[in-house]
């Protein structure tokens, strides 16, 4: 057993070292990014943290902690169990996190947390290849109504993920009943999906514009509709679905939540701080340069928005048999 004792001694040493690090008193705000460094949630925490301290809205620097696991479930569980009342703690989330909650993949329901604000969003788009015979969103929905399984569609999420659900919301608006018949292919990212569409493997891509903007600029693909309230500043020629008479928005928003037992005063203070941050040029520039559209919903309005979005997702997930 020398072997085992030796490794556990080593492990113990590292554990001890790690504990002393995390046990340091939290004097300033902390932002948990429930992913490894580099992802969207990590960007949310690091950028918001940087701008918060630049504007002097928090004391010192915001400590960013990466806590990956379970598409946000590990961080969610930790906050619910250990730090539900920690008023210095904010956690990054997004539409992806809400999709997980709506489908019951987090250890506790949505209401466990208090939702602070969304500060920016990637806009969902529906795109076809430049050589595709389909020219408009109306032609696409007409083709799908005629035969839901005729076109192969794809995007960066799995079946029941946000890219898939946004497309189905458009299909549902067009009057398609049998949503499950639409063929959906998952790819590891919007870029992959577009590459496969250019290679002729699939016909339609539904994903975030930010990831595939390069292809729109180069003219390799044609965006039929943007799922936003207003036209996208960088691409004013792309029609919104709403302007085409399809009442669907599909933002992949970036926002924050805090623990469920945080006091009303602390909650309101965070919302106010974040609104100041949102209105600063620092944030507007940082968000735009990362391909996000700055968009604000905060406080009670944001709480209601999150619940409504989760309800829509739950309904569609049920319709296509992702959840029972």
């Amino acid at each position, binding site marked *: 057993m020398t072997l085992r004792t030796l490794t556990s001694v080593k492990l113990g040493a590292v554990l001890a070292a790690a504990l002393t690090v995390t046990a340091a008193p939290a004097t300033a705000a902390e932002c948990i990014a429930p992913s490894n460094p580099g992802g969207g949630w990590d960007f949310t925490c690091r950028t918001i943290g940087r701008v918060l301290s630049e504007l002097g809205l928090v004391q010192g620097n915001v400590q960013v902690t990466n806590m990956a696991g379970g598409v946000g479930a590990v961080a969610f569980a930790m906050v619910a169990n250990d730090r539900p009342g920690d008023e210095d703690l904010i956690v990054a989330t997004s539409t992806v996190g809400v999709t997980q909650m709506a489908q019951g993949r987090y250890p506790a329901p949505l209401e466990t947390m208090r939702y602070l604000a969304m500060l920016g969003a990637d806009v969902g788009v529906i795109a076809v290849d430049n050589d595709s015979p389909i020219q408009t969103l109306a032609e696409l929905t007409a083709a799908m109504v005629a035969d839901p399984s005729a076109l192969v569609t794809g995007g960066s999420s799995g079946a029941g993920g946000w890219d898939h659900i946004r497309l189905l919301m458009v299909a549902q608006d067009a009057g398609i009943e049998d949503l499950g018949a639409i063929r959906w292919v*998952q790819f590891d990212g919007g870029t992959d999906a577009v590459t496969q569409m250019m290679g002729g493997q699939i016909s339609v891509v539904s994903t975030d514009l930010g990831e595939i903007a390069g292809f729109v600029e180069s003219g390799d693909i044609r965006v039929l509709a943007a799922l936003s309230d207003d036209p996208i500043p960088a691409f004013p020629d792309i029609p919104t679905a709403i302007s085409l008479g399809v009442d669907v928005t599909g933002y992949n928003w970036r926002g924050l939540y805090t623990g469920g037992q945080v006091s009303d005063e602390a909650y309101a203070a965070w919302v106010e701080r974040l609104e100041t941050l949102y209105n600063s040029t620092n944030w507007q520039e940082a968000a735009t340069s990362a391909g996000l559209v700055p968009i604000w919903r905060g406080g009670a309005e944001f709480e209601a928005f999150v619940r409504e979005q989760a309800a829509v997702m739950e309904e569609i997930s049920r319709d296509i048999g992702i959840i029972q």
Partner: protein
Amino acid sequence: MEVFSLIGNGFLIALTPLNIGLLLLGCFVGTLLGALPGLGPVNGVAVLIPLTFAFGFDPTSSLILLCAVYFGCMYGGRISSILLNIPGDEPAIMTTLDGYPMAVQGQAANALAISGVASFVGATIAVIGLSLFAPVLARAAIHFGPADYFALYILAFATIGGIAGVDPRKTLLSAAIGLMMATVGIDPISGVPRYTMDSFHLYDGIQPIIALVGLFAISEILLLLEKTAKDRPKAIKVDRWLPQWSAIWPTRWAMLRGSGIGFVAGVLPGAGASLGSFMAYVFEKQKSNKNGTFGKGDPRGVAAPEAGNNSAAGGALIPMLSLGVPGSGTTAVLLAMLISLNVQPGPLLFERQPDLVWGLVASLYLANIALLVLNLPMIGIFTRLMMTPTWALMPVVAAITFVGVYGISNSIFDLKLMVFFGVLGYILRKLDISLVPLVLGLLLGGDMERNLRRAMSISGGDWGILIASPISITLYALTIGFLALSVWLAVRDHKQTKAERLTEG
């Protein structure tokens, strides 16, 4: 030609002070890791990955450092093969066959010089091939659909099965363990958690980096615990360090043939440098062993496998960069690192991040020159460092791995997982089961499964899609050809040893 201006730009990136510094460091560390028996390219790169995260290098610099280590290991592996008769790493096994006999006959300096030059020739030919072919393959890759990628993964697994000297059943077992582990986590297509044992930590699956560091670095430490400090190998003394041109020149054709064969073996996904050096040696022996000098210190038997393994190492970068499918165990580790840094290798990498690709290519040209200098005139340093007692080395390795892995994710769970993989790697190595198929299984398994299921989603469940494109049919034909070749080689070897036994008896 477009390639020249791209490489020109690459040199501007490669020649920044940071990158040139990392390059030289990588070459030095790589040669040393290669020379030290036990630590090979996969372990070496796996140990250094956490460090690149800790220093926060950008993807280009990280890749330059690690590729320099990779190439350096390929050069360095021969030193202990020749002087100790212990291969410094797996691909250097073939070099012991003629390298050690040469050293015993007092030809150590020449053996080192020939193999050093052969390494340079092989690696340089491979980098030229990389510059020319990788962009072409990347352009063609846009036509690769899910079914074609699936066929490519099948080919990858067929080629690892073909590595000789390894019991094919053990290879199969190792690959199967890797494939099984690849299924852990949330299935990205349906969103269903699989084999997560209700632990959220496993929802994201097993991070290949964690598994790799555990399998290669931790198991190495565990293996060392068994050895006593007295087990120090005796090295053959080398009388002089300057190479003799007259000894090197006659092996030129062996070097070129070895480079060509190694390059093809490297480009094939999955196979890698061990296969490259094996095939190069077997071919050279077949062609040149007129007087039965192979295995008794024939210089061509040193030149061919060394050119072969270096060339294969460069060739293996081609499918890794242009298709996102690694050509060897080490490139599999590099791929995992790139993905962790949010760089997705594949057809678009060349368009989207030309700086990364061409900066790397330019660095590899420079690395070869640096390595030639390190491995010919300055080789004395490494023969001395090679004798560093492992008890002094391993604690450093242990410290780097634990701190580094914790630095990636701040997760205690990941440390436990890494130790688990270390113990698993130790057990498998004690059972003589190669870890490379396991790594490929773990790394490729998920993509292989997803591409199969994507193909099925596209066709609406019709299996015919798998053999519906010319690309997939070509890949399956290559797979069958490759399997036939390895069976033929195995049978022939078997007959030959029988015949030898009869003549001797």
